[in-house]
């Protein structure tokens, strides 16, 4: 069974801090994703990576960056946290190839004060 692990379930940070959200998958998946989940807005893709050191912007990349130094780990970075980045963040992974489902982590509920 695929396991996608997000390092923190809940996180509270202050405005202006640099925040790191970590995600690890154990199934050797090529693709990894970061979403934010907000009520009434569904899931919105922040960034996507299809290989080590490869990344692609999603729909809402502003204020975020990512790092993928190893295949199993995909980090989301909030360069200077702001209150409008308070949200639930979901990490997902999938194998390469068409029509493959994504497997999600438990999510990190991030509050920026």
């Amino acid at each position: 069974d695929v396991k996608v692990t997000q390092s923190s379930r809940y996180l509270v940070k202050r405005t202006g801090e640099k925040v790191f959200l970590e995600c690890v998958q154990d199934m050797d998946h090529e693709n990894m994703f970061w979403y934010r989940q907000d009520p009434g807005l569904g899931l919105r893709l922040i960034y996507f990576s299809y290989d080590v050191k490869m990344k692609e912007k999603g729909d809402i990349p502003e204020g975020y960056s990512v790092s993928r130094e190893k295949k199993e780990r995909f980090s989301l970075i909030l360069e200077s946290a702001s209150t409008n980045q308070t949200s639930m963040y979901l990490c997902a992974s999938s194998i390469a190839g068409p029509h493959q489902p994504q497997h999600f982590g438990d999510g990190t509920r991030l509050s920026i004060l």
Partner: protein
Amino acid sequence: AQRVTQPEKLLSVFKGAPVELKCNYSYSGSPELFWYVQYSRQRLQLLLRHISRESIKGFTADLNKGETSFHLKKPFAQEEDSAMYYCALPLTGGGNKLTFGTGTQLKVEL
């Protein structure tokens, strides 16, 4: 642009009643759509996908290209079906990227 629309934020039904969660998409080709479900305090998980044409937990979904819909149906709702349901459409350009609808909260009442 590729888009998924779920018109209902909340759907409330009684136990044993039929359920239909609506999903409409905009895509010019032949899409391979997904339904994902998130139960309370659990991770988002795949419920079913069009390509496999399977029935999971009594749910089915049929692709209607004429109406550009992929509605999720179940003939008799159970209390444990209460959850948030998302319809998702793969984006062109590869990488298995998905665009999700805004979700429908299903509440099954006794």
